[in-house]
């Protein structure tokens, strides 16, 4: 293994550096305190800014504050799925055990973000649109994303042989990835009740700077939160696996 890695060109070596669980654990331990600390700061300042500093909207009034949770949650729902798809491709192509672990550890987080986006969107929709839910292209495709996350979680545990479950889950994650561009562009391709993008669009954001910076800060906080919890989940999985191995060894040794 080491001789093979040494003979590879530098590019492929750097990719395989994180395939080693021991090295990953050391890296996670070094990064985690920083991630956790910055998450706390970004979310505390972001929430305070969103709830107290940012102005009310000229049309929506105070209800606009739901946006500071809804939009970052929706961004993370798409981001987490993209991470899962990339990690699944790496796991299928290079048989990369840590990538596989990352994909499986990220899906409950992604499901939680998607649920948060759906729930907060619904709470905003009732007073603003006049309805909790409509079957337009944006809302429906995000609901499909939620079910994809649930399916990914279920299928990776559905097999007697964990290896087969992982492979099936990775393929599902890749197939489901077609939904991500559909969600992003649904508001441009079709008439939807949901408004088009205000920040991630070509040209200047159509959101006033006094509302944009708290939103971006919340986005940073959500992203850091995602990585903190992802690293924690992966770490505990790896430690649990190590514990199982030790127990097996001690049983055999007896």
């Amino acid at each position, binding site marked *: 293994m080491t001789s093979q890695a040494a003979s590879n060109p530098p590019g492929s070596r750097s990719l395989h550096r994180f395939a080693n669980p021991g090295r990953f654990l050391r890296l996670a331990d070094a990064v985690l305190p920083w991630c956790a600390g910055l998450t706390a700061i970004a979310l505390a300042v972001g929430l305070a800014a969103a709830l107290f500093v940012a102005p009310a909207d000229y049309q929506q009034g105070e209800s606009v504050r739901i946006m500071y949770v809804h939009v970052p949650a929706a961004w993370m729902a798409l981001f987490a799925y993209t991470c899962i798809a990339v990690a699944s491709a790496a796991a299928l192509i290079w048989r990369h055990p840590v990538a596989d672990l990352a994909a499986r550890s990220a899906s409950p987080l992604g499901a939680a973000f998607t649920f948060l986006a759906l729930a907060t969107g619904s709470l905003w929709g009732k007073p603003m649109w*006049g309805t909790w839910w409509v079957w337009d292209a944006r809302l429906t495709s995000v609901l499909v994303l939620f079910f994809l996350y649930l399916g990914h979680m279920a299928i990776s545990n559905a097999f007697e042989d964990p290896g087969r479950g992982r492979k099936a889950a990775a393929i599902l994650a890749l197939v489901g990835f077609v939904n991500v561009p559909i969600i992003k562009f649904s508001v441009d391709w079709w*008439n*939807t*009740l949901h408004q088009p993008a205000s920040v991630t669009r070509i040209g200047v954001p159509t959101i006033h700077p006094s509302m944009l910076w708290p939103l971006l800060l919340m986005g940073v906080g959500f992203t850091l939160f995602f990585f903190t919890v992802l690293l924690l989940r992966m770490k505990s999985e790896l430690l649990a696996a190590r514990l199982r191995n030790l127990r097996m060894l001690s049983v055999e040794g007896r």
Partner: protein
Amino acid sequence: MTSRKKRRMTLIGLGMLALAGATAMVLTAFQENVTFFYSPSDLQNKDVPKGRNFRVGGLVAEGSVEKIGDGATVQFVVTDGGGTVPVRYRGLLPDLFREGQGIVAEGKLNGQGVFVANEVLAKHDENYMPPEVADALKRSGEWQKGQATADGAVQ
């Protein structure tokens, strides 16, 4: 990279391409069904379902909202710049309903070409700003420009 890894990579790449192509074709085929509402100009140019419920969306024309009959029924004109359709609705209107604002109404066309709605939803655009900024924009005359680009709903 070994040949097996290369093969797996090609397989996944081709699979994703085929999937994306198939999805694109399906979505193009179902274009009409995915669309949440018709615009007033669609009503004039396209075949819209007669005699069954559908949705129409656009801006509420300035100065067109009037109460008729019993006082609980409102009638207003929905426009997208190209076409217009009168909409009649009896019931509670959402908070964001106002002249110049986007709405989506669900209902049927009656014999006189009036769209009788059983539900009216407000459509929010992608502009977010404090009230003072909105007032300043209106005063300086920049408002119309901003509104026109914002109006993705009724292109």
